[in-house]
C-alpha cells in the first residue's frame, strides 16, 4: 500500500516510476491488514498530524477511485467498561480535539444509538467520525492500475530485488533483480516489515522488526456492527504506564458481510503458526463488546506482520547516508491509513517541493547512533 501510494503521487507529479515486488500486488502486510484509517487511536504528535493529513487525502483518493476499494467513512466508536477507563478516554479525546480531531463524548445511555448490539453494561464512549475503512488490497491494486494508465508507471511483479546498486561515490543508481538491472537515481524502500533487509542491501541499518497480528473473520452476518468499535482499555493502560502486553480487539462489519476482529500483537519474528491464545483473547474481547457475536462462527484467521520501529514512528524520507535512497516504511499497524501522506511526503522529497508537514520526526537516520540490532 505504501509503495502504491508513493507510485501514485510520484507518477502524478510527472515522474517515471517502476514498482518492483517479489510477489503479487498486496502480497505482504497490505493483504493481511484490516484497512484501518484511524485518527482515534493516536495521541497528539507527529503520527496524528500524518494521520489527519492522510484522512483528507483518502477522501480525495476515494473520490477518484471506483467504489470497489470499499472506502467507507464509517466512524470509530471507542467504548469504556469502567469509570477509570472512561476518565482516561475523555482526557485523551479532549487533547485530540485540541489537535484537530473531531471527537464526541457519548454517554452510556446513548451508546445504543450508535451501536444497538453493544453490551449493556459499558460506562460510555467516544465517537470519532473521521475514522474510516478501506479494503487495502483493492485500494493498492486500483491505485497502481490508475498509475499504469498514465503511462508513467511500470509494474514488475514476481521479481525480487537482490541488490541496491550504487555509484563509486556511494549514491544509488538502481537495483538488481533476478531479471536484470533497473536504473534509477532514486530508490524508495517501501518493503514494510522487510524494510531492514533492503536497507542492509544499501549498507545502512534501519531497525525495523515484525510484530505479528492475527485477524479473525466471521461468517457473513446481517449488519451487526456499524462502526469500528474497540475498547478504551488500552488508553487506560497507556495512562497507567502498565508494561503488560495488550491485545485490543477492533470489531467492525464489512460491506461483504463478515465481521473482522483484529488484531493481536506479538513479537515472534516471521512465524505464521497459529497462536490459540491470541485468538482466544480476540474472541473474548469481541464477544465482551458484542455478546451476540458469541454464536457467530469464525471462518478463517490470518496472520500479518506489522513493520515497527523502536519509537513507533515510520521512517519517511531520504537517507543521508546513501544519497538517492529514500525510506517509506515502519508504519506498524497504521500503514494503510498513513499511506497517502507518506506518498505525498516522498514525492515532495523527490521533486524538491515544499513538504506538506514537518517531516523531521520521521527522519530515517534517527536511529543511526543506536547499537545495531542483533
Amino acid at each position, binding site marked *: 500500500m505504501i509503495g502504491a501510494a508513493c507510485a501514485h503521487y510520484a507518477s502524478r507529479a510527472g515522474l517515471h516510476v517502476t514498482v518492483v515486488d517479489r*510477489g503479487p500486488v498486496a502480497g505482504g502486510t497490505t493483504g493481511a491488514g484490516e484497512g484501518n484509517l484511524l485518527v482515534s487511536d493516536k495521541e497528539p504528535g507527529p503520527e496524528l498530524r500524518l494521520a489527519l493529513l492522510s484522512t483528507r487525502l483518502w477522501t480525495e483518493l476515494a473520490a477518484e477511485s471506483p467504489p470497489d476499494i470499499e472506502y467507507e467513512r464509517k466512524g470509530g466508536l471507542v467504548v469504556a467498561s469502567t469509570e477509570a477507563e472512561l476518565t482516561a478516554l475523555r482526557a485523551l479525546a479532549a487533547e485530540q480535539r485540541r489537535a484537530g480531531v473531531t471527537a464526541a463524548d457519548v454517554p452510556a445511555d446513548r451508546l445504543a444509538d450508535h451501536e444497538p448490539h453493544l453490551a449493556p453494561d459499558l460506562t460510555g464512549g467516544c465517537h470519532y467520525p473521521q475514522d474510516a475503512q478501506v479494503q487495502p488490497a483493492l485500494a493498492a491494486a486500483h491505485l*497502481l*492500475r490508475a498509475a499504469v494508465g498514465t503511462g508513467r508507471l511500470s509494474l514488475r511483479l514476481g521479481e525480487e530485488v537482490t541488490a541496491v546498486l550504487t555509484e563509486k561515490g556511494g549514491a544509488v543508481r538502481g537495483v538488481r533483480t533476478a531479471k536484470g538491472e533497473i536504473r534509477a537515481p532514486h530508490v524508495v524502500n517501501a518493503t514494510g516489515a522487510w524494510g531492514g533487509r533492503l536497507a542492509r542491501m544499501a549498507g545502512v541499518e534501519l531497525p525495523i522488526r515484525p510484530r505479528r497480528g492475527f485477524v479473525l473473520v466471521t461468517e457473513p452476518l446481517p449488519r451487526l456492527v456499524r462502526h469500528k468499535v474497540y475498547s478504551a482499555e488500552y488508553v487506560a493502560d497507556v495512562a497507567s504506564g502498565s508494561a503488560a*502486553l*495488550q491485545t485490543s480487539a477492533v470489531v467492525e462489519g464489512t460491506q461483504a458481510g463478515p465481521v473482522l476482529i483484529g488484531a493481536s500483537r506479538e*513479537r515472534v519474528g516471521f512465524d505464521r*503458526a*497459529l497462536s490459540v491464545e491470541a485468538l482466544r483473547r480476540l474472541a473474548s474481547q469481541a464477544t465482551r463488546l458484542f455478546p451476540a457475536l458469541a454464536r457467530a462462527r469464525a471462518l478463517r484467521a490470518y496472520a500479518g506482520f506489522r513493520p515497527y520501529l523502536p519509537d513507533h514512528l515510520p521512517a519517511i524520507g531520504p537517507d543521508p547516508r546513501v544519497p538517492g535512497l529514500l525510506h517509506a516504511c515502519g508504519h506498524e499497524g497504521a500503514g494503510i491509513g498513513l499511506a497517502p501522506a507518506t506518498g505525498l511526503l516522498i514525492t515532495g522529497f523527490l521533486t524538491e517541493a515544499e513538504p506538506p508537514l514537518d517531516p523531521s520526526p520521521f527522519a530515517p537516520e534517527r536511529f543511526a547512533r543506536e547499537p545495531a540490532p542483533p
Partner: protein
Amino acid sequence: MPSPGDPYDVAVLGAGPAGLAAAVTAAEQGLTVALLDAAQQPGGQYYRHPAPAARATRPDALHHDWRVFAGLRERLDAAEGVTRLYGHHVWSMTREAPGSPWSLHALTGEGDDDDASAPGTGTTVQARAMLLATGSHERHLPFPGWTLPGVVSAGGAQAMLKSGLALPGTRVVVAGSGPLLLAAATSLAAAGADVPEVIEASGYLGYARHPAALAANPGKLTEAARHGAALLRHRVRPRTRSAVTEAHGADRVEAVTVSRLGRDWRPVPGSERRVACDALAVGHGLVPRTELATTLGCATRRAADGTYALELGPLQETSLRGLWAAGETSGVGGAQAALVEGELAALAITARLTGRRPAPARRLRALRRRRDHLRAFADAMAAAHAPGPGWTRWLGDDTEVCRCEEVTAARVREAVADYGARDPRSVKLLTRAGMGWCQGRVCGTAVACLAAAAPDATPAPPDRRLLATPVPLGTLASLTPADPPPAAPDDPSEGHPS
C-alpha cells in the same frame, strides 16, 4: 487410557483406512491412542456406510473390501487403550515447542457435518505423537452450468450411494478424470441408474509410460479390470480424451455438451455433441487435506497431479519431528496404500516412543516395499490424470468459479491481467474468490490455474488455513487462558488497536 491430564501416547486424526490401521496397530503395540474423527462413526470417506439408525441390511453391498473394514473394526473393539473421539471437528493443531506434546483443538456437539446450527463446545486433546490421516477432498474444475441442480461430484454420488441415499438421477453421465470415475459409474449402474457415457479427459495410455509401476501392482490392475468388466456388463464404454464442457438446463441439468480434448485438454472446436441426461457426476481426482500440517510450516511436495502432499521420511514422519502422516495426506494413493502406511506409521511411532526397535523387522520391510510399490502406482496414475492447462478454455467469462462468493472467471482473469494478482491469495483479496463457506476448497484449483496464466506468475504455495473448520467465537472465547509466548524484552507495551 492415560490418567486425566496426561497426554495420550498418540493421537490419530481421521478414522478412515489409514487412521484405523494406525490406531489398531498402535494399540496392539501397547500405546494409548486417541482416535478422532469428525463423523459419528469410523470408516472415513472410503468405508462410508449408513448410520446404524438407517438399519441398512447390507452395508457391504457397495464395498468390495468390506471384510477389511469389518476386520479393522473388530480389532478396534478388541483393543484396549483406544479412546474413540468421534464427532470431533478439529480446527487447529498446535505445539508449544518442538518436543512438547501436540494439542488438537476440537469442536464437539455439532452433530453431523451438515448440521452446524448448534454451537459446539471446545475441547483439547493432547498427545506425545501425532498421526495425520485426514484424507482428501475432491478436486473441482468448473465448467458452464456446473452449478445446476443435478450436477454432483463423482465422490458425492459415491457417498450418497454408500450412505444408503438416493441416486442423483435416472440417466447419469459420469465425467472428469481418474479412477474414481470408473468406481462411481460402476456403483451408479449397479444401483440401477442408466449411465449413458463415462467421459474421461485423459487417455489411459498414460499408464503405459510407467510399466514398472503397473507390473508391481497386479492388484490395482485387477481392480481396474473388475470395474471395466462391470461397466461392460452395463454396456458402458468409457470415452477418453473428452470432457463435459457445458451442462444445459433451466431448473436442473437436461443435457451436457461433450467435447473432444487436445493434448493439453484444450477443447477441440467443432467436436461438440450433446448428450441428454438428468444428472451429471463429475470428478477430477482428489486433493490431500494437509492444512493442519502446512499451517505449522510442514514441508510439502508437489505431486504429479499438481496437488500438494506432505513430504515424508521413509517411516512416514513429516518434516516436523513427532508428526507422522498416512494415507491421502501423503499423496492420493487409495485405500490399500492408506492401510499400509497407517500400519507403518504406527510401528514407527511405537519405536520412537518406547525406544524399542520397530519389531518385527521383516514386517516393517514388507510394509515399506508394499508402500513403495503402491506409491509408484499412485504417482503414475497422478501423472496420467493431471489436468492439462488448456482446461480453462472451457470456462466462459460468466462461468462462476467461486460459488460461495459468486465470482466469475472474467473477474478472476481481470484481477490477474489488470490488477496484479498472481496467486490464489491475491486473487482472493481482489475478488473474494475463496472467501466463502468452503474457504477455497472447491474453487482453489480453478483459481490457481487462472492465476498461473500470468506470464510472471509464481507457483501457488500450498494452502495455509489457520482454522481447519469454522469455530464459533463463543467457543474460542471460552478456551482456557494460556500464557502468551514470551515476548522479547524490548517488546513495546502499549496497545494501539491497529
